[in-house]
């Protein structure tokens, strides 16, 4: 591709990071702005880093490490694993290390990095977690990779990349009262399936996206990987700049936008007119249906949290349904604010009190039960409604348990009725 050829957002970002040929399918090396790893991906990455034989990371200020999956330590093995990550951070002089209870403003990686002002439009961030695509909400190119990639990027400050084809996904129409960013990505997954966007960079746009808050853009971009995408990006606009302005203070904020005639492998238009809240039925995030078609399914556990939907917006949405109501007999409500900042804000707004008064429980920020780790594991036969991003067989516990994915309003409605139901029905009762 020559310099004169128009570029998509993903191509602009890769070109700005040293990839010489940004035509889709070509290979190159991209300079990284930040490398992220957690206790799980870090566990293997540290071992591979040692095998590489590099004594120091390429730049300790460009590495971010999180104890969030098995933290607070679930058992002895987890404690030892987190201990190795903590020691690595100390030995390498990495100051961007977060562990709830020990460092300020800790929490789930994808929530904390933007809060801490470490993500800016145009950044290229590989992370040892598939949901690293969440940073697309800020007009950045975040992409999930494995541990050996992380080890290599920590040593070199570069990542090998295959340039993705771009797919334009535009949303039009007027969103219903209880329809959120979660439903927008589920609507896309309903069309694309779990592999429809394999290796693509999704670019979300349209009037619905322009009106979407940052929290909901994060929910949208977070699940791009569920369609197989390499990343999902909302080009930075005024909403992005307003949100970042008091967080990113050490460098200029410059939105990266697509050239007018940039080439897209595919264009998808989704109208949200008349669209109700959506649900992904087990065992696939692309097994999407309208809330009405699963109405009445009994729910043993409602789980609100994780890197897609554990934000203050989600807690507000949840509480708008459960406020003044009680968790239904036989149902548990577990709420996991995604970060200590979200927790503090929720305290300030009285949301934690609302949850506790309803009979729900609030946990420390952790990836916890979302991936079947701890803090709310399901028994055989149990059914959960979760605001998380995956519902594969056994994802949150026993292989014979099942997980329905939905937004935080739906979670609220399920918590107080003990079943899947349109939130509108609860609030009108």
């Amino acid at each position, binding site marked *: 591709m020559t310099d004169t050829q128009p570029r998509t957002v993903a191509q602009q970002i890769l070109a700005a990071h040293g990839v010489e040929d940004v035509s889709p399918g070509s290979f190159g090396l991209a300079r990284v702005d930040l490398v992220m790893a957690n206790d799980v991906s870090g566990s*293997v990455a540290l071992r591979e880093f040692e095998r590489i034989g590099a004594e120091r990371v390429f730049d300790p200020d460009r590495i971010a490490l999180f104890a969030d999956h098995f933290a607070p330590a679930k058992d002895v093995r987890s404690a030892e694993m987190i201990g190795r990550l903590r020691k690595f951070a100390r030995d390498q002089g990495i100051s961007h290390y977060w562990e709830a209870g020990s460092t300020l403003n800790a929490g789930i990686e994808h929530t904390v990095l933007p809060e801490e002002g470490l993500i800016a439009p145009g950044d290229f961030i590989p992370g040892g977690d598939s949901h690293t695509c969440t940073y697309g909400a800020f007009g950045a190119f975040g992409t999930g990779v494995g541990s050996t990639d992380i080890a290599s990027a920590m040593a070199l400050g570069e990542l090998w990349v295959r340039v993705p084809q771009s797919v334009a996904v535009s949303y039009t129409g007027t969103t219903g009262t209880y329809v959120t960013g979660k439903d927008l990505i589920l609507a896309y997954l309903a069309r694309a399936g*779990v592999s429809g966007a394999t290796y693509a960079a999704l670019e979300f746009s349209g009037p619905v996206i322009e009106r979407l808050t940052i929290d909901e853009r994060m929910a949208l971009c977070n699940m791009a990987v569920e369609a197989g995408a390499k990343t999902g990006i909302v080009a930075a606009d005024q909403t992005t700049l307003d949100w970042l302005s008091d967080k990113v203070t050490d460098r200029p904020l410059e939105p990266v936008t697509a050239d007018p005639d940039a080439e897209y492998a595919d264009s998808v238009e989704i109208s949200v007119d008349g669209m109700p809240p959506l649900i992904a039925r087990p065992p696939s995030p692309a097994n999407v249906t309208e809330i009405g078609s699963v109405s009445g399914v009994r729910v043993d556990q409602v789980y609100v949290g994780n890197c897609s939907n554990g934000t203050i917006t989600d807690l507000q949405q949840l509480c708008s349904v459960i406020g003044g109501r009680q968790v239904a007999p036989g149902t548990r409500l577990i709420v996991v604010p995604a970060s200590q900042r979200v927790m503090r804000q929720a305290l300030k707004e009285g949301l934690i009190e609302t949850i506790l008064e309803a009979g729900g429980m609030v946990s420390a920020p952790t990836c916890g039960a979302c991936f079947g780790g701890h803090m709310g594991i399901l028994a055989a036969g149990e059914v959960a409604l979760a605001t998380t991003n995956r519902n594969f067989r056994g994802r949150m516990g026993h292989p014979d348990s099942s997980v329905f994915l939905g937004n935080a309003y739906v979670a609220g409605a399920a918590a107080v009725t003990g079943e899947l139901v349109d939130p509108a029905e609860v609030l009108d009762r």
Partner: protein
Amino acid sequence: MSADAIEGRAVVLGHDVNTDNILPGPYLNLTDPEELGRHLLETYEGDAGKRIQPGDILVAGRNFGMGSSREQAQIAILARGVQAIVAASFARIFLRNAVNVGLPVIESPEASAAIADGDHVRIDFTAGRIERRDEHWRVAQRPAFLSEIIDAGGLVEWTRRRLRATGRT
């Protein structure tokens, strides 16, 4: 890839096998490869996980390895002695990780559709083909860049060379 050709028994899996089912989340705090290997495909429907023997070749459908980026999936597969994976297609991160750790992965929708569980399969890397009895399927040549990593023996060695070449160690 060290060997020019390998052969082994096919263990057939379906479409969209996810990494949660390849190596379930609760075991992600294990570090010993052998221990991880014991839980291979534990929550995947059926008994494939139990049946896998050293030397086997996994043959899967579309989008093998979708979901989580956990490299513990590759570690568990290698720990059980699996020689290679043939699939109609692979999920992006799984493919990266396999290339990076030197686990041979071959895309062939035709071979994936034709090979049955228990078939004896031969993969000739030099000739670029998958063989079963009197049939064979051509494999698309892999991009030169990936060959560079694979020929180095994986990303660890490739990175070591690059560090040396750029004068950083």
